[in-house]
Structures are given as C-alpha cells and as structure tokens.
C-alpha cells in the first residue's frame, strides 16, 4: 500500500506492507535510525516519536496508520549537532543519559510532556515519563533535565564529552 507521511518536514511517499510497523518504516525505509527499538512490546518507550505532535510508541503503530500524518523523529528535533533542541541541551547539561539507548525516546517523550504541561512539578515529570524506561540513570538526572528545560535553565554553551565547557 502506498502511504505519504510528512516526516521531519518532508513529504515521504513509500510502498509498505500493511503489517509494517511505524518504527521499521522510519528506520528501514527512511534510514532514520535515531529512533531505537527496545522492548518491541510498547513497554520501554525507546521507539517514542511524535505523530501529529503527540508522543507515540512507534513499535505499536502501523505505518499505514500514519498515512497523511505528520511524524517528527529525534532527527527532526534539531537542525544540527551545533544547534540542538533545548531539551537535548538540557539532557547534556544535567547528564540525563549514560548509555544513551533510551535517550531519543526519552527526549521525544519529554518534549511532548512539556507541550502538554509547560510548567510541571517534579512529580508530574516522573509520571509523565512513566512510559519510558532507563536502566542506567535511575531517572534522577533525566527529571532534572526536563525541569531545567521547562524552567528555561539551559545554558547556551554546550558541554563537551569530557564534561568541561567547550
């Protein structure tokens, strides 16, 4: 079946089998591998992206269901590594990641969370991220990052990998 999906601002038309899951459409048909597959059972949230502006687990949605929709993946969040989204900067600033596997999904869920609730309490952030699992961080710095982003407390200078300001 032919579908047309607006992905990160570009109209993409592809032939897909109806059983193709959205996450595999994005990863394998479009080559956008920033969206990870984790549990593949709609538990872990690693595959979170936005469909029509709302966070969705793309392992539990068919690509044909996204026909005509607008999809934003982690690649669409920021134009380049030098010009990251404030949420990405916040994750870097607050050390909201370790291995990084959950991070794209976590960032996409967090952006959707702030769209719906721009000034959340810490508890609301924790509840709002209940659909995303992180096995490294214990969530503490992730929550700090989301709160920092919400409060506009994200510095302009990116932090280098070694932790020193570049």
């Amino acid at each position, binding site marked *: 079946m032919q579908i047309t999906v607006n992905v990160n601002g570009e109209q993409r038309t592809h032939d897909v089998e109806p059983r193709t899951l959205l996450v595999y459409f994005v990863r394998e048909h479009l080559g956008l591998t920033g969206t990870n597959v984790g549990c593949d059972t*709609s538990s872990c949230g690693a595959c979170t992206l936005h469909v029509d502006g709302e966070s969705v*687990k793309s392992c*539990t949605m068919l690509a044909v269901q996204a026909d005509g929709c607008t999809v934003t993946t982690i690649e669409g969040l920021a134009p380049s590594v030098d010009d990251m989204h404030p949420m990405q900067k916040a994750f870097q600033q607050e050390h909201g990641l370790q291995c990084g596997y959950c991070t794209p999904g976590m960032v996409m869920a967090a952006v*959707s969370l702030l769209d719906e609730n721009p000034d959340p309490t810490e508890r609301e952030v924790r509840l709002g991220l*209940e*659909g995303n699992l992180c096995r490294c961080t214990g969530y503490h710095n992730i929550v700090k990052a989301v709160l920092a982003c919400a409060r506009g407390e994200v510095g302009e200078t990116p932090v280098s990998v070694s932790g020193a300001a570049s």
Partner: protein
Amino acid sequence: MIPAAFDYQRADSADEAIALLTEHGDEAKLLAGGHSLLPLMKLRLAAPSVLIDVGRLDDLRYVRDAGDHVAIGALSRHRDLETSELLAAEVPLLAHAAGEVGDPQVRHRGTIGGSLAHADPASDLPAVLLALGGTLVAKGPAGERTIAATDFYEGFLESTLEPDELLTEIRFPKTGAAGWSFQKFNRRAQDWAIVGVAAVVSDTVTGVGLVNMGSTPLLASGVAEALAEGADAAAAAERATEGTEPQSDINASVEYREHLARVLVRRALVEAGR
C-alpha cells in the same frame, strides 16, 4: 516482532466499517488505536486476515453532555477523557481512570471503544464501565442497539458484540457529588493492574468494579450488597472476592490477588467516603 500478513481496509464512515465487517465476517478485526490488538498480533496470538481501520472516524470522537448522562464517542482517546472538563465535573471516576491507563504514549493513541470491546479483564476501563453502570451503543447492519454494561462481558477477551457490529458510543450516568475512588496496584507505573478497583458510592448509587479478578471484568456484587445492608467499609471489603475467580500468574498467586482485592476495596470505599 512483526504481525502476520493481513489485508488493510480503511473505513471512512461507520456504515462503511459495518459493510466491511459484514463482507469479511470472522476473518476481520476492527483497528482503532491498536494498543490492545497490535501487541497481540505482534506476538501472533491474533492473526486476523483483514484489519478494518476505524481510527479516522473523527465523528465518533467526542465527549458530550446528554442531560442525565455523558455520551462518549467510541473513538475518543484516553487522553481526550483524561483532559475533559465535562467528565472531570460529571463523571470524575472515568476521567481519573482514563489518566491511569498505560502511559502518556498509550493514552495518545488508545481509545475507550477499543479498550472496552477488547474485553481484557486486566484493563482499567471495563471495571469503571461496570462500576458506573454505563450503557454501550452498537451499530450493525440492522441498525443500532444498546447494551447494558452488565450484559457486555461474556468471557476472556469476549464481549457480546456481534462480529458485524461496531461500538459507536458509551453512555455514563452523571455521578455528580458521589464519592469515588480508583485503586490500581502494580509493580511499575505503566503496567496493567495486578488487581484494581473502581468504586462509586453515594446514598443512591453504589458500584464497585474489579480489575483482573477473573476471566472477565467483574462487579463486586457482595460488596454492594453489604453496603446496602449498612456495612462499613472494612466489613463490606471482606466480601470483595465473592463470585471472583482470579488466576495465578508471574505477578501474583490466587491468594495474593484475593488479599489485594479485599485491601483495595477497603481503601477505595474509605476514599469514596464510605
């Protein structure tokens, strides 16, 4: 995990969906948000040969004041219910429970009609439907009919919807100032309830629904009976397991589920002001 191959048909109206159901019969399944059906298909526990996508029937996505009840279109998503001011004022138990389903991503896609029709005893909303004494509206080739909540669940993942019927609307009586509570016990925030309780209690209405205490969503009729006889919360909660048939699984033994049911019913009744 990839589902078995199927034919995909998109319905642009309720009537078209019913015509497609009539044409394909038992081989077809309706796809709404897909958050119950697609996981089963990925595990190959379900392999329908035709999927009829009703997810775009936006005329069945509404929450409306209908006098003594609130009418909800079957394609309304959990997020719609969770954020509905009308529901928060008139049927707060439902608004709250909808916000406890899965996680935000699931609530963005999952629909009330899909959740109720899937008839999973571990789901939250069927127990809420029972507790509130809601009514379901189903449309088939011969027209519409209404089904009382107590007549809707027949067996595990089995409702009394006919294979050619589409659930179109669910009606919930306004509970106004009645006390209510939703208790969900699970190990991780996003999980299904190991046991859950939905309760609404006032002088005129009493309903206590149980999640995951049998092969279907259940009403705790012994609890309601005890309350009608004037029992307090603790005494009524002792009757929580009457008529239940909980299963043992990786999360809980039968005995533990029964214990949870009594504890959670008591907590729910206390929170509901009994």
